């Protein structure tokens, strides 16, 4: 599984961080940092929740 963020869409709403904190972090500079581009399968449900909760539909999962 590969996590892809469209940074042209991302507005740092930080919902992804709430859903999958091991994969997404919005820091105090209010930019999103993807902590793991290829998270383990155990993270799939959390990453899928992050995809659904993103108000900008900016996150996609490949594979």
């Amino acid at each position, binding site marked *: 599984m590969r996590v892809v963020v469209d940074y042209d869409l991302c507005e740092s*709403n930080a919902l992804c*961080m*709430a859903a999958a904190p091991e994969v997404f972090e919005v820091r*105090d500079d*209010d930019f999103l940092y993807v902590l793991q581009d290829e998270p383990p399968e155990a993270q799939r449900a959390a*990453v*899928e929740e992050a995809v659904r909760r993103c108000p900008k*539909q900016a996150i996609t999962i490949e594979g």
Partner: protein
Amino acid sequence: MGLDRIVIVGASLAGFRAAEELRTRGHAGTITVVGDEAHRPYDRPPLSKQVLTGVKPPESTALHVASGSVDDLGLDWRLGESATGLDLAHRTVLLGGGERLGYDGLVIATGASPRRLPGTDHLDGVHTLRSLDDSIAIRSALAAGPRRVAVVGAGFIGAEVAASTRSLGIDVSLIEALPVPLERGLGPQMGAVVADLHRDHGVDVHLGVGVVLIDGSDRVERIRLTDGSVLDVDLVVVGIGVSPNTEWLEGSGLTLDNGVVCDATCLAAPGVVAAGDVARWPNERFGEVMRVEHWDNAIEMGGHAARTLLGQAEAYAPVPWFWSDQYDRKIQLAGRAAADDIVEVVSGSVEERRFVAFYGRAGRIVGVLGMSQPAKVMRWRSLVEDGASWDDALATAAETAA
């Protein structure tokens, strides 16, 4: 589990997320999705922002699924059809075209409809905004270059439409019957900050006044307010709230009271759940019966109701969350604000329109509001989730700031 046929009435966010959750949880039977619009599920927040300003093409609002494509869900669509009745005893939904859909499980997600100003139906140039087609119509009207637009109602829709219209360089008058914008969402103190945000951007703000008359020969020409002022306008957008779409359920035996009344697990009757703007339920976390019209609630409640239908019933007790983009500012609130809450700015500066404020009630923190501070809102949201005391919440904020 005796759930071969599931019918979802409502093809917007809550219904769509319910469908996705049913498939994610392994429901292999048929899922029929009934929607009264011709469009497949789409995302509404851009309708008052990027679609209105022409930055985003309407088709880009189509909702995606987390993995794969919407077609992978294998949904049986009934688009452009409305449900007109429900027969609980025979577990059947009636459609306007005469079709009868039998179900083993039913998800009610029919959303809400904008209230209209009475006496304006004969006038061109008076709009409400809820659907994609509404947004496209207003976009066209804005593209025609109106001299002044009146926005009636300064809730989320009105405030965002005012901001989007100003960003196109068009003059805007924003009219609100309450003393401040977003009063129901943010309370009086922070609503006043939003009023200033609009004034910063040159909006002609009228607060605490109502509309007496919207007037014109065949098109809107002027709007008369309760304080005696008369504004010459050639376009009006009305955003005075919504009413839950429950007409089709009248006489069905479901309890209707400002929405479909559910139990704490989103169950409205055996085999029937409700989610999103149409649903009212006791949120045990807040000890309050709520109907929440936020985007995030449609997602979470849609998924939750689907799980309840599958027999995995748990109490639905979220901390509500919303955001609203106005100009270059992002307003976010996690929790619930009430008019008499204590409000304290804990980070940043109101004057710079970049800050975080906490809302407190009965010794606890009940809300975190941010203006363009998303990371902090999300971090401190857990204080509301954990039911932190007001003093502990303030101490946590002070610690982070230090």
